[in-house]
């Protein structure tokens, strides 16, 4: 696997406050990596450093094999800043034409890019009249210009409605399949869960967890939940048989099974035979893992 982005022991201090503390990360070709963390965790700082926008104190940064912010790196990297802003007096098409020219691409590509992010009909309107979601999509459209090797997207889905979010991730999937690497930050854990290959969790500049979702689950060793629904009339009997179960509003029992005890618990439930209508197995979600590592880290 070729490495598109490599950070090792990256440290950055703002007036005595550590925004990043020895953070290491590698992103390979075609890989999608999510950067998670509370506000102020250091996500935007990390992104600005690897774009060469702000200096760092120590550590190593390599972007597509070049120094961050070098001409070579900037040619191959696309960026979508947090709260992407554009000049309100220009239309979407004119703004895209500007960015296309900066990358030496034909201006005629603007219409296609705007269509791709669903802004085709608003292309001739001034950006000052756009909603936040529409501006976000202009930001996405400019990030698609050329064939970037690495896309750095800072909270790209903030301000997008659920349908737009899905469309957005579909576009990202296509890019990653074509070999582009993607680093994105997010608050929305559930959407990242299914749509990224690896996850890095930052807390106050410290890397508190990193890996695939499966890795993180194993590391956190969180309980799995079984949701057992009783057959009609079997509720009380089931509650007696599964004394540790917590009754839910819909009549189901929720059982927390410690890491590694899932099969044994399932065997017990199946043994109850006709009393059970259905069982759902809920592995610890990213949300659980996230609050687990954040709590452990003293939040």
């Amino acid at each position, binding site marked *: 696997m070729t490495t598109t982005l490599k950070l090792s022991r990256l440290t950055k201090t703002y007036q005595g406050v550590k925004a990043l503390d020895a953070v290491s990360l590698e992103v390979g070709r075609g890989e999608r990596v999510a950067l998670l963390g509370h506000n102020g965790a250091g996500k935007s700082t990390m992104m*600005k450093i690897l*774009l*060469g*926008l*702000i*200096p760092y104190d120590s550590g190593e940064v390599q972007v597509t094999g070049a120094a961050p912010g070098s*001409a070579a790196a*900037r*040619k191959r*990297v696309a*960026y*979508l*800043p947090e*709260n*992407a*802003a*554009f*000049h*309100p*007096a*220009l239309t979407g098409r*004119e*703004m895209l*034409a*500007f*960015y296309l*020219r*900066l*990358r*030496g691409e034909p201006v005629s590509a603007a219409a296609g890019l705007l269509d791709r992010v669903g802004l085709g009909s608003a292309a001739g309107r*001034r950006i000052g009249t756009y909603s936040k979601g529409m501006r976000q999509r202009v*930001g996405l459209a*400019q990030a698609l210009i050329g064939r970037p090797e690495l896309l750095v997207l800072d909270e790209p889905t903030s301000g997008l409605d659920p349908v737009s979010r899905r469309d957005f991730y579909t576009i990202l999937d296509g890019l990653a399949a074509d070999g582009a690497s993607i680093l994105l930050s997010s608050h929305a854990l559930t959407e990242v869960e299914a749509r990224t290959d690896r996850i890095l969790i930052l807390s106050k500049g410290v890397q508190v967890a990193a890996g695939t979702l499966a890795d993180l689950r194993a590391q956190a060793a969180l309980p799995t939940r079984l949701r057992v629904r009783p057959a009609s009339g079997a509720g009380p009997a089931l509650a007696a048989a599964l004394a540790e179960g917590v009754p839910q509003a819909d009549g189901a029992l929720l059982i927390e099974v410690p890491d590694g005890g899932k099969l044994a618990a399932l065997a017990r439930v199946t043994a109850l035979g006709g009393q059970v209508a259905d069982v759902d197995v809920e592995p610890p979600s990213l949300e659980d893992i996230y609050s687990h590592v954040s709590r452990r880290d003293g939040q």
Partner: protein
Amino acid sequence: MTRILASFTAEFRIAVRNRWVAIAVVMMVLFSAVLSAAGSAPTGALGADRLSVTVASLTSLAVYLVPLVALLLAFDAVAGEIERGTLPLLLAYPVSRAEVLIGKMGAHLAVLALALLAGYGTAAVAAVAVDPRALAGLPALFRLFWSSLLLGATFLGIGYALSAWSRRPSGAAGLAIGLWLVAVVLYDLALLAGIVASGDGFFTTRVFPYALIANPADAFRLFNLAASGATAAAAGVGGAAGSIPIWDSLGSILIWPIAALMLAIAAFRRVVP
């Protein structure tokens, strides 16, 4: 080159949309028209053609107006990008900060050129309409035009530097107005005070000529007055034009725009988005 063109095109569009073009054009036309009308009385007696006389008064106008328009166009250039939050994305693109600024300067110079063409053109038409000999003044008007652009470029560059230093448009606007006051008003007053105090002493003979040439606005005035031989008509600081070689003032108005652009680029390079 296409990157400079990108910056130029976007900036020029923005200037048109934000009515800067209209404001600058109206301002120049208005002042030129007033000057043409006011300067009508005593011309024939001096023997100069009507347009040459108008150029002399346009020069005095341009000394104030061109730096002002240039600073108004420039103060938002970097600070505005910072405030709108558009700078991080721009600087992530494969474009150098010098290219961005040169493109902006080209666009702002184009706006200024339009305003000057309209204003000086109005004055020329008015002069030729009443005095057919006024065509003889066209070379002087052309000289005023390109030297005005150089003066504008100087203050554009300085305006960009102020914009980068202050980081906020309001702060940059304040600095720009302050600079304008100092460079085109207070500077001359201070020099006059120096002359009065020194008489024919060291300041008047040694320092004053260089102090005049060092200020781009004064150098611009000296150059145009000296070149058109209109020094007799000019009072105050302009009266010194005769004693300073024209090459010195020409050198000053040629060097200043380059120096100002380099200053602007250096200031912009130090901006952390």
